[in-house]
Structures are given as C-alpha cells and as structure tokens.
C-alpha cells in the first residue's frame, strides 16, 4: 500500500481472504468489517455493536481472533484473513459448524459466525479445553438467544471429535 496517501485518497490493499488473494481500493480508515461485507460481499461477518463489545464481527487476522469493526483496513494490508465463509470446504461443514447445529448452538444466527471463529481460535490454542477455557474463549461474544449452554456444549463436542481424529 502507498505509505502516505493524501486525505480523501483511497489506497490499494492487498490481502488474502479465505485463501484467495484480494485487491481492494479503499479509504485506509474504512473498517475491515465494511470492506468484507460491502466490497467483498462476504456478509457472513455480522455487525452487532460496532464497538468491540459483542464479537459478532469476529474474524481471524493472521490466525488471531479480532473484532473486524475495530480494524482499519489499511492495517490488514498483507494479512491473511479467515471469515465464516472460509470455514466450510467444498460445501462440507466444519466440525464446529456441525456441532453447533447438533447442539442447538444457534438460534437467530447473528452471533454464530463470531462464536464459531472464536471457538476455532480457542481450539487452535487449546485443543482440549475445559469448560472454564471455553467460557473464557467465548467471553467476548454475546448471544441474546441461547443462554450460552448449548454453545459451550457444541464447542466441547467439536473439541472431543477433533482430538479423537
């Protein structure tokens, strides 16, 4: 990207999204969330609060869970991003997605993409999480439907399956 664009100038941002190289023209302070949804039409990433409190817009940025509403797109330049659309391969659900479905871990679905990415990030760091780890790993993601228990159960189930494989 151009290191010193003028005010009002858009900059070219090159990054990898769900394994595909992307090149977008955007204002550097545009939120990664808006670029994903509006430019790349990846609307699986949801906006909840827009201030980093609810976790609905969670994505992985170079393997790190982030709230995409708090990332200026210029800071994602050169990064590798995973959104919920990148979780399933060839129309096959990811084991976490399967477990959420089986356990009733999703109702209205607004928090679900963020929950699943937070869970993926947790399992990458802790493949055999205790309930306390799951609670902590998802503490930044708010759900107003399920009461959380089904979500915790889904993550625990997916973890058991992953470890067994």
């Amino acid at each position: 990207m151009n290191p010193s664009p003028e005010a009002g100038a858009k900059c070219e941002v090159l990054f990898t999204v769900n394994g595909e190289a992307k090149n977008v023209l955007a204002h550097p302070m545009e939120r990664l969330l808006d670029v994903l949804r509006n430019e790349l039409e990846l609307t699986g990433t949801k906006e909840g609060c827009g201030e980093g409190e609810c976790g609905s817009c969670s994505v992985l940025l170079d393997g790190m869970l982030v709230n995409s509403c708090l990332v200026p797109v210029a800071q994602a330049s050169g990064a590798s991003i995973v959104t919920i659309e990148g979780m399933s391969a060839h129309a096959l659900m990811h084991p976490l997605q399967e477990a959420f479905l089986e356990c009733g871990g999703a109702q209205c679905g607004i928090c679900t993409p963020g929950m699943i990415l937070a869970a993926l990030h947790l399992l990458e760091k802790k493949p055999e999480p205790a309930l306390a780890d799951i609670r902590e790993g998802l503490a930044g993601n708010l759900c107003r439907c399920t009461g959380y228990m089904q979500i915790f159960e889904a993550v625990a189930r997916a973890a058991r399956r992953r470890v067994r494989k």
Partner: protein
Amino acid sequence: MRSDPAEYRLVSPGNLQAVLSLLAGEPAQWLPIAGGTDLMVLYSAGKLPNRKLINIWNIPELRQIEVFPDRIRIGAACTYTALREHDIVSREFPLLAIAASWTGGIANQNRGTLGGNIANASPAADSLPALLVYDAELTLISVRGERRVDYRSFHTGYKQTALGADELIRDISLPRRFSGYVSHARKVGTRNAQAISKVCLAALGQIANGTIRDVRLALGSVAPVPLRLNETEQALSGKRIEPSLIDAARKNVVKEIRPIDDIRSTARYRAVVAGNLVAEFLEKLAAAEANT
C-alpha cells in the same frame, strides 16, 4: 453520527524514525494508532477529533518484550495476549498478567496494547494499577531523543499525561524484584470480560514475623487517575496485621480516594468496595505468613 472514512488519513511509515518525524513535523496533529481497541470505538461513533493517524501496529521494535537480569522491557505496542503468554511476565509480574486477562475479551486482548492503555489514560483501565505497584518506568521517545519517566508521575489529571505532543511511549520497564512478594488482584465489575471495572485493585506485600515490611496498593476507577495509595501504605508499613489495623486501613483508603457516581457505579459503593478489597488483601498477606 458515524465517521466518513474519506475525511481521515492513516499513514503507515513502517519504521520508528519516520513515525517520530511525522509527530515532530506537526505536533499534536498526528495520532498514533496501534490495535485500535479504543480509537476505533471513538472513530466509529464520530467522536475522534484527530483526522490524521499514524499506524504503529507494524513497528517491530514496539512489539518486543526484552528480558534483562534486573528488569524487563515491554514494547509499548505489546498486546495483552503477548503479556499473558510471556513466561517472565506471568511468573514475576502476575498482577499484570491477570489484569491483561480481564481486559476486554480474547479478540480485544489480541489487539489492545499496554502502551495504548497508558496513553488512553482511563482511570478505569485494568492494567494500570499493576504498573503503579511494580514501579514501572516509561521510555518516551521523540526526534529530540528519549527520556525516562517514573510511571507514578505520568498521569497528571483526568485523561491528562506527561506525554509531549511530539512524543511516543516506546517501552515500559519493570524492575525484577517483586517475585518474593504476596500479590493480590481483584476486579469488581458486572462481568469479567468486556465490562469496565467499578473498582479494581493491584496489591503487593512482604511480611516477616507478623510485621509488614513493604506494602504497595493501587486502585482503578476511584479517582481521576489510576491511584497509588501512598498514605494508606505509610500507615501500614512496619505494623502488625491485626483487626484494628485492618479497620484503620479501610478508613485510610476511603480518605485517600476520590470516587464519583457514574453509569457503572456510585461513589458510596466504590468507597466501601475499595476498603473491602484492601482489607481482603491484608488478610491474605497475614494468612500467607501463617502458612509458611
């Protein structure tokens, strides 16, 4: 009203010297942005007055934790996650690692930085009381050179700091002499993750033969700045921990703090809780000796 991104600049020089040159060229015009967990909230709400931002997220020297025999030096753009995962920080500075685990949720810990917490200067910040009790020293850097500032004198008023208009916080240095201390960290809030504290405490103490040799107490959310309780500490130093001392400490704490009513709590509640947290620590300190 949401901000229009077209009205903002964000430049990304990629090295420290270029960042400092920009800051020096137009002092107070450029605002450094690291993980954005505070600034992007203001920006999204249309409340960020600065229109010119400098990306410091990609400056490698600000992201290092260096370990020396007598101190550790934490780059200002180290994240809470980096602090939590660092072996020496967790072992020798547990109050800082615990406070990092309270800050936001995992996604915010992956982006929020210690230097950002200091520069943002919220009296409710969870990690700042820990820096006060560990005798942190800040290195402030500008094109004019660098200077060291005792962290205890950094916050000069509500959201006011000693940082010059052309300066950047480069690192936070902590002396490695607190591993023998009993430490105690408590956050009182509506929930651990995300919720901002009503009151939080970082405390360190050393006790020998029933007598307090050294005690260090700092509270968040009870004054315009993160507060070290100098007078309460003095009143405790050299004394035996007894019920009457604990009662006196509670009264001292209430005299020393200046809590307010706000959306999260009331001054009265905060005063009672602040006294309780210090009392709880003193009981823990007494029990620690009884158990050894």
